[in-house]
């Protein structure tokens, strides 16, 4: 290890320092929104050291346990943006709901650090540790509103499911260690080449439970609706994008680095899981009335879509498509949750029928919500459209035509419930015509999310280039 290793992990050090600094600020000030503002500024500043990594070559640092490559940098950027947006939204949403406001922002930044570590670790111990890191903070954040029974329930359920899933995953890790005698991913990749298949299969299957839990893939999805509904809305937003993204990062790194699909055909396994997730998530989303529950089920279905990008990893479309999808989905899903947070705060309800007449009461939010719903369906020119286009192209490219067809059919199905929200907002008569207050910070976060959704949809080229270079750098 050398000093240059330390320079390579400046973003992580910055995030850790920021989180601890936030705890101090929280201690010293009575104006808790200040903590949130400092958090946002600190997160934005961390873009500078992250950006400086873009030009560097791929390598591992700190005794090979940590990757500094384009792939990791991509997820660092994604995580930081998502965290900043969520903190911004929480500044308006949280006050009055919990007496531990400052710690909320600090915990969000800690979670961001865990997600960043998760996407870049090349050692199974560090990987397990960072997954648990994220899980622990997520459990706390999900159960943050102690007076709220739904939040309590969300916390307990998330914890029980998560802890069980991670125990199973760790068993898989232990078998992988037993097969290779090493904890380093690249070392494992070298030695696993002549490992016996059944044990390898078992280990991958057990590990999938942990990753599947994080990305809310069927059959590890049961926690999703309850947790998203019960958790504080910004936290649900965060879990549905950042946590999911890091889960995908870890899954992709694990599968691509460690397991040669020529030896162990995990492509079919992932493809089947992808199809099932898409379909089941969609079907369960159809009857939902609660917007957060609907978004939860739809996020299961999106996890299925994203899995297409994992299965179709060969060629120029699949994996870059996954990254583009994740980034676009991040803006869109965050935006949708922010509108839900705003409406929930103003109306005190999360039910879709109560959104009636919103186009007149909160025109900007309603318009943005419509854009987000269209984007989630996959209409051009929005960000998720680009992502869907790429992963579907990747599927066809990889000879997974059936999967692409399932994807298209599911997109059409999803139109039904996404359009239901738009219908409620624009067609249904309003119960009241009092205009809703639209708080500033939340509005800014919403605006950025909307801008991101549209911008990626209209001019995707820089993102595509970024994603391509990120994928190229994955294999060291």
């Amino acid at each position, binding site marked *: 290890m050398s000093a240059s290793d330390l320079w390579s992990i400046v973003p992580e050090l910055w995030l850790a320092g920021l989180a601890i600094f936030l705890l101090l600020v929280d201690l010293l000030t009575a104006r808790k929104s200040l903590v949130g503002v400092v958090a946002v500024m600190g997160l934005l500043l961390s873009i500078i050291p992250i950006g400086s990594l873009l030009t560097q070559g791929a390598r591992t640092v700190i005794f090979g346990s940590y990757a500094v490559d384009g792939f990791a940098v991509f997820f660092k950027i994604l995580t930081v943006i998502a965290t900043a947006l969520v903190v911004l939204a929480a500044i308006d949403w949280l006050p009055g709901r919990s007496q531990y406001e400052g710690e909320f922002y600090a915990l969000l930044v800690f979670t961001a650090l865990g997600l960043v570590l998760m996407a870049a670790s090349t050692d199974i111990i560090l990987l397990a*540790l960072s997954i648990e890191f994220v899980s622990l903070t997520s459990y706390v954040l999900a*159960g943050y509103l102690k007076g*709220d*029974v739904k939040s309590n329930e969300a916390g307990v359920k998330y914890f029980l499911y998560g802890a069980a899933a991670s*125990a199973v995953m760790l*068993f898989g890790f232990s078998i992988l260690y037993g097969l290779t005698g090493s904890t380093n991913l690249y070392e494992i990749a070298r030695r696993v080449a002549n490992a016996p298949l059944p044990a390898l299969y078992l280990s991958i299957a057990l590990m999938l439970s942990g990753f599947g839990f994080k990305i809310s893939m069927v059959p590890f999805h049961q926690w999703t609706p309850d947790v998203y509904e019960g958790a504080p809305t910004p936290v649900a937003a965060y879990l549905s994008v950042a946590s999911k993204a890091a889960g995908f990062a870890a899954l992709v790194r694990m599968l691509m680095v460690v397991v040669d699909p020529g030896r162990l055909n995990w492509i079919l396994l992932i493809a089947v899981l992808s199809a099932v997730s898409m379909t089941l998530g969609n079907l369960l989303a159809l009857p939902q009335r609660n917007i957060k529950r609907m978004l939860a089920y739809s996020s299961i279905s999106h996890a299925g879509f994203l899995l297409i990008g994992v299965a179709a990893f060969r060629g120029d479309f699949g994996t870059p498509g996954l990254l583009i999808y994740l980034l676009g989905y991040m803006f869109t899903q965050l935006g949708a949750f922010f509108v839900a947070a705003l409406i929930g705060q103003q109306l005190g309800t999360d039910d879709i029928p109560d959104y009636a007449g919103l186009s007149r009461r909160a025109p900007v939010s309603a318009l943005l919500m419509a854009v987000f719903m269209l984007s989630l369906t996959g209409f051009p020119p929005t960000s998720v459209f680009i992502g869907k286009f790429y992963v579907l192209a990747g599927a066809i490219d990889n000879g997974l035509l059936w999967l692409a067809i399932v994807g298209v059919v599911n997109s059409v199905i999803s139109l039904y419930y996404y359009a239901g929200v738009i219908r409620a907002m624009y067609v249904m008569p309003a119960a009241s015509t009092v205009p809703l207050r639209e708080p500033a910070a939340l509005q800014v976060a919403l605006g950025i999310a909307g801008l991101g959704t549209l911008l990626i949809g209209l001019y995707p080229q820089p993102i595509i280039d970024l994603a391509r270079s990120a994928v190229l750098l994955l294999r060291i």
Partner: protein
Amino acid sequence: MQVGLTHYLVVSTLLFSIGLYGVLTRRNAVAILMGIELMLNAVNINLVAFNRYIAPGAVGGQTFALVIITLAACEAAVGLALVMAAYRSLETIHVDEINVMKW
């Protein structure tokens, strides 16, 4: 008969299954946590045994086991705090009674 790797793996597998059974069948949140602890112990036996028999030159497995023990303690602290919070507002720690939200 010499005690070999397989012996330890059998014990850990049995422990893992017992823990899994507990997780799946208990309705008390704390009892589920106990099942999870058993599963984590099984993982640790695995790791330490593999360390001893497969890679005795390094201490990777033991390190992993120590990290998992730490994580188990963190999980217990956070999880039990959540259970306590739920108990305060719902007055139960049985997961089948913690169902304000409908499917």
